[in-house]
């Protein structure tokens, strides 16, 4: 019994760690969706790009990790602005399918460029955290896991404060609420769109660096961008709180499903479970836990 319990809590803890990264990426995703109504299929590639840039700066340019981390964030900020200006801005007012397709194409371009520059094999970050597991509340936890969980929570809290108290955050919330109202209040919507992409790129690259430290960096990281869909659908596409709650929930659910069903169904359940869950949510509660229900009038 205690063994079962230990297994269960171990799954929960790994789920929380993974969930914290999901929450970060989902936050970036919802940010873009909320303020610009764009469903961003390139979120995973933003994450992967951040991880690779940080790796290149640390290993190839021999910059201390902390500095390369900060430089990566700066790069992501600039990259987000660039993408919004060149690719997304011409798409304002286009149909949903065009916007979806352009972010898919963007993701392919980014993946190809990354493959051309860095190749396809998995790369490993230089060890920053010790391997020694920490004995924590009766469970063994790797230092990196604790660190990433803490870091993700701090990030989420910081963005929460940013939206609540800074004027830029307020402007973004207004834009998300109603673009026309925001414009009449003198908010420069185009600037908000650019800012949303920049912040989203930053958040994703933080997630990428954390994941890269845990699992190593490869093209697989981009799959994270698709995993984010179950999280945001569960939380509600346009809710920041929803993204965070959804991220943690999907992380835990995925681990529990993987832990208990993998031996029965023969592997891979971890990757699949979120999507089965996604279909179920769409059928019973399409707008998620915190999403705004869309009422359409003719």
């Amino acid at each position, binding site marked *: 019994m205690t063994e079962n319990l230990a297994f269960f809590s171990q799954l929960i803890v790994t789920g929380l760690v993974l969930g914290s990264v999901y929450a970060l990426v989902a936050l970036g995703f919802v940010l873009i969706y909320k303020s610009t109504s764009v*469903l961003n299929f390139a979120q995973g590639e933003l994450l992967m790009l951040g991880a690779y840039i940080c790796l290149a700066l640390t290993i190839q340019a021999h910059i201390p990790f902390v500095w390369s981390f900060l430089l990566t964030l700066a790069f992501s900020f600039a990259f987000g602005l660039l993408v919004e200006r060149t*690719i997304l801005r*011409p*798409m304002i007012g*286009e*149909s*949903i*399918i*065009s916007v*979806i*397709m*352009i972010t*898919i*194409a*963007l*993701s*392919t*371009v980014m*993946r*190809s*460029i990354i*493959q*051309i520059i860095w190749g396809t094999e998995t790369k490993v970050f230089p060890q920053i955290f010790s391997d020694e597991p920490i004995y924590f509340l009766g469970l063994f936890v790797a230092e990196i896991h604790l660190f990433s969980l803490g870091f993700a929570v701090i990030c989420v809290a910081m963005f929460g404060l940013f939206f609540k108290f800074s004027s830029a955050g307020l402007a973004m919330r207004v834009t998300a609420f109603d673009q026309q109202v925001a414009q009449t209040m003198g908010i420069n919507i185009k600037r908000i769109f650019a800012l949303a992409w920049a912040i989203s790129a930053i958040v994703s690259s933080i997630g990428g660096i954390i994941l890269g430290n845990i699992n190593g960096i490869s093209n697989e990281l981009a799959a994270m961008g*698709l995993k984010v*869909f*179950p999280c945001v*659908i569960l939380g509600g*596409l346009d809710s920041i709180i929803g993204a965070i709650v959804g991220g943690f929930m999907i992380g835990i659910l995925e681990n529990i499903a993987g832990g208990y069903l993998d031996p029965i*169904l*023969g*592997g*891979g359940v971890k*990757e*699949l479970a979120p*999507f*089965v869950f*996604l*279909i179920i949510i*769409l*059928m019973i509660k*399409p707008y998620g836990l915190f999403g705004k229900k869309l009422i*359409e009038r*003719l």
Partner: protein
Amino acid sequence: MPCGLFHTRYRTDERVFQTIWVRSWIAGLGLFVLLLPFFASGYILYVANTIFIFIVGAIGLNILTGFTGQISIGHGAFVAIGAYSSAIITTKLNLPFWLAMPAGGLSAALIGMVFGIPSLRVKGLYLAIATLAAQFITDYTIVHWESLTNGITGMFVPSPDLFGFVFDSDRKYYYLLLVFAAVAVVSGRNLFRTRIGRALIAVRDRDIAAELIGISLFKYKLLAFALSSFYAGIAGGLWGFYTNVITPEHFTIVVSIDYLAMIIVGGLGSILGTIFGVIFMTVLPELLTTLSLILKDTFGQITTLLSAIKGMVFAVTVILFLILEPEGLAEIWRRVKAYWRLWPFSY
């Protein structure tokens, strides 16, 4: 003599090919397509065959996404279901080709309808995500249901055999595919001149309004999913019989994205555009491959980077089309035609 095309009867107005010129061009094109295998090389026939298969699948996706407005990022899944169903029916049940094809199409249609159920409650972005999930669930099932599908090792599919005649070469298969593609094009074009097709278009333009004028959304949305998946299933079956081997890798999300790219580059809601898009998006990577073979000696690395370069050219093409010509090749064609129709007195 009237300067332009003026109809005096409904019958002439409703014709697909309206002038004698268009009809003779089409006849010429038909002749060319019929005679192509006699002078084309094996490689060109291979490209032509893939184009035919993709035309069938892409028309299916265009029925769903272009004409009915239901975004699907899971078309590859339905192609997979068609391919695997017809392969299983042929190899495990030993049924003939002419039964395996429609059976593959019907099973794809059935599963397509199941995954179409969310479209009744959600639309737009939400539906796109639901179909994405359909893609992953299908991929997983195919890989893990090993007793039926052989998992990642894939399945062997024999060459099709129609009443004793075996289609075992590119040239023989070309004509078989030509028939399938022609039927797909003709039925796709004519579908939208019927009551069902008009209803689907009404659903796309405004689904609530369509419901108000008496179009059952439940019926027509599911019908769109079924029709689209049926085409996809046929395309998948043809693909399996053509390549003789199917593995799960042939039907990943990349395939779904390829199909979407084809109909977007070609033109959403246009059968002619679908054909253009398929040809464009199939020939482009083949040209790149040829180019890389030529440049192999000067840039040694180019072959290892080929897949990445192909991906990039593909995606950049899609981006450029979406930004510069959102209506796709069909719109360019329309403009070119409009220019020449009254030439040289276009004013």
